[in-house]
């Protein structure tokens, strides 16, 4: 193929000094580009209507946002539901996730909860029933409750922050954990801070 245009070849052209990270941030050309991963909790107030959860979850999957947990439930307003998500993303991923969420029409508002927010997760842990007394003892230490007692299996309920629940599950592992179910994190802002702006104004 003979055609083409004339002009200096790439190596004969001046080159600029600068460089950007793969995230598009201008950096010192000598610096190592190492994006920091951020783990945070997002709370979205949404219209309580069919399809909202699907819209939110397909958004996260198609934009490849890393989502650790997602919970959804009603609020005191029958027309509103609250979705709480724990996301783990390098910047600007977290900011993007917030802005893309806010763009969905059924989403009324999105708040990123600070580190001092109240976060709780519930887990049900089913263990072998051979040593019920020891299970009760561990449950007491972990602030867990026994919710089902059978001849072959016991189920305990534990509530706490995600690491607390992790530790509790670890503690019960010595009895032989048969099954675990976890709800994912639910969270509210502390004190009088609002978790979500209810007016819908950005």
């Amino acid at each position, binding site marked *: 193929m003979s*055609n083409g245009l004339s*002009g200096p070849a790439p190596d004969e052209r001046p080159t600029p000094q600068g*460089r950007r990270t*793969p995230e598009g941030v201008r950096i010192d050309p000598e610096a190592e580009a190492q994006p920091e991963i951020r783990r945070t909790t997002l709370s979205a107030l949404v219209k309580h209507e069919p399809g909202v959860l699907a819209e939110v979850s397909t958004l996260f999957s198609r934009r490849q946002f890393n989502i650790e947990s997602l919970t959804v439930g009603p609020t005191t307003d029958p027309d509103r539901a609250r979705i709480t998500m724990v996301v783990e993303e390098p910047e600007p991923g977290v900011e993007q996730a917030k802005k893309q969420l806010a763009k969905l029409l059924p989403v009324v508002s999105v708040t990123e909860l600070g580190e001092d927010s109240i976060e709780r997760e519930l887990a049900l842990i089913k263990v072998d029933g051979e040593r019920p007394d020891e299970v009760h003892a561990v449950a007491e230490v972990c602030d867990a409750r026994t919710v089902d007692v059978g001849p072959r299996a016991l189920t305990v309920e534990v509530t706490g922050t995600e690491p607390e629940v992790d530790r509790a599950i670890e503690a019960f592992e010595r009895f032989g954990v048969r099954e675990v179910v976890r709800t994912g994190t639910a969270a509210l802002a502390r004190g009088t801070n609002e978790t979500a702006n209810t007016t819908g104004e950005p």
Partner: protein
Amino acid sequence: MGTPPETEQTAEAAPEGVETGAQAVVEALRAAGVEYLFGVQGGAIMPVYDALYDADDLTHVTMAHEQGASHAADAYGIVSGDPGVCLATSGPGATNLVTGIADASMDSDPMVALTGQVPTAFVGNDAFQECDTTGVTDPITKANYFASDPDSVGDDVGTAVALAAAGRPGPTLVDLPKDVTAAETDRTPGEPTTPETYHVQERADEVAVEAAAHAFEAAERPVILSGGGVIKGDAHEELREFAFRTETPVVTTMPALGSFPEDHDLAMEMAGMHGTGYANMAITHCDLLLAVGCRFDDRLTGGIETFAPDAEVIHVDIDPAEISKNVHADYPLIGDAGTVLDQLDEAVEDAPDADEWRAQCREWKETYSMAYEIDEDAPLRPEFVVEALDEATGDDAIVTTGVGQHQMWAAQYWTYTEPRTWVSSHGLGTMGYGLPAAIGARLAADDDQDVICIEGDGSFLMTIQELAVAVRENLDITVAVLNNEYVGMVRQWQDAFFEGRHAASEYSWCPEFDKLAEAFGAAGFAAEDYDDVPDAIEGALAHDGPAVIDFRIDPGANVYPMVPSGGDNGRFALTEEQL
């Protein structure tokens, strides 16, 4: 006595109110100012078509295929600025629209799709021609609605139309179950409005504007990057005014072709993968980039690491989610393009001191000129064909294209000076877009505007059936096929990156497009030599109705400059050896 007067009155008088869900749909379209619809009939949408039968003020164009309907509506939206509307039945009708909806979504074009659906009682039962249309189109629409109530179906449609054009435009869809459109209602839809949860910020924050203005004033090598949002936001006048006053060189993205006059001294034209060398040099070496209404697509930026690496970025966009998505914005300005450009114009007192930079840009325009040589005895150069068409048509002529090499030549070698004259598939890259788009563009354009569809042989064959529609509607469109009997862009990449192994890119036989045009009832022309070109163009333009010119171009012609995918914009290749 003749016919009883009552009967005569019923036949003539326009209905005072609506009687069915379908009539509410039509009434909502009317209230939203819709004039044209593009669609294909089918079972579940029949009640809507039946209501359209009486609507003399709404023109429906029956397309050959639903994909054509969606592209025609998309192009209508691009040229007119008002949402283009397409209609289809449930199931395959709706899925055939999907390509066009995705195309409109990627390019932020105002478009509304109305789809029939099986009756509500059958939904979820895998009924005949059932498809979860709202589910399928959720990721590619700005919003979609499943109309569940005849009393609110009209409002659903009104909202969809209003939303498609508001803020950052995009496609919306309303799924219309047959029982809902057939059901009785007397609810006339209200004024079309956007939903309460939809917010658009028109003016940028004043403090942010001040900061951006200071950065701009301090720049030594400023460049304006005009994006598609400048055209969609009707901000081309504000952009031109700002560029002229501050004497700032202007680079455009592909969707922004026409936002700035390419024959102006400050015009650096299109940047990116097949942008001009001078545009890519300007972007690569600038120290301030004022980007307006663009989303920093990878075909523009090449590798992010080397994109405008010395530049502070002022990013004006109406969509906050575009800020710092791909390229970090040092000065984000959220708002309507024209409004924010006015704010900036006011805040910038002294234009940057950039005489040297302008001289450098001018020099690059010489050094990396797009000029090419012609050998009269060699096969036709596609660049020549594009320039000949440009010369033979008015300044406000509209160009539509498919996707591939022909699209790039059309972008590079036509001189765009007016907004809404370039109609193409940018983000999704949909081959076959050109002809159905020309149909939509023709109906949105003024009668004295030429509409030229530049297509490739492979791309044209994907939607060629729409020629039947152009003939049936007697639409004055000239289709110029840049025929190289290849899927040319793929062939070019195979030569550059796959050792010339032409897998599935060569056509051992191609139809004669001039004859095929005649079979459809259009006028057909062919041009093989340079001498044939003027007559073929003249004949096609003079023909009142659709005409097709089969330009047998150099099969070896490649598109240059070229920045390989993910490459450094400043290291664009001018020949294959440089790739």
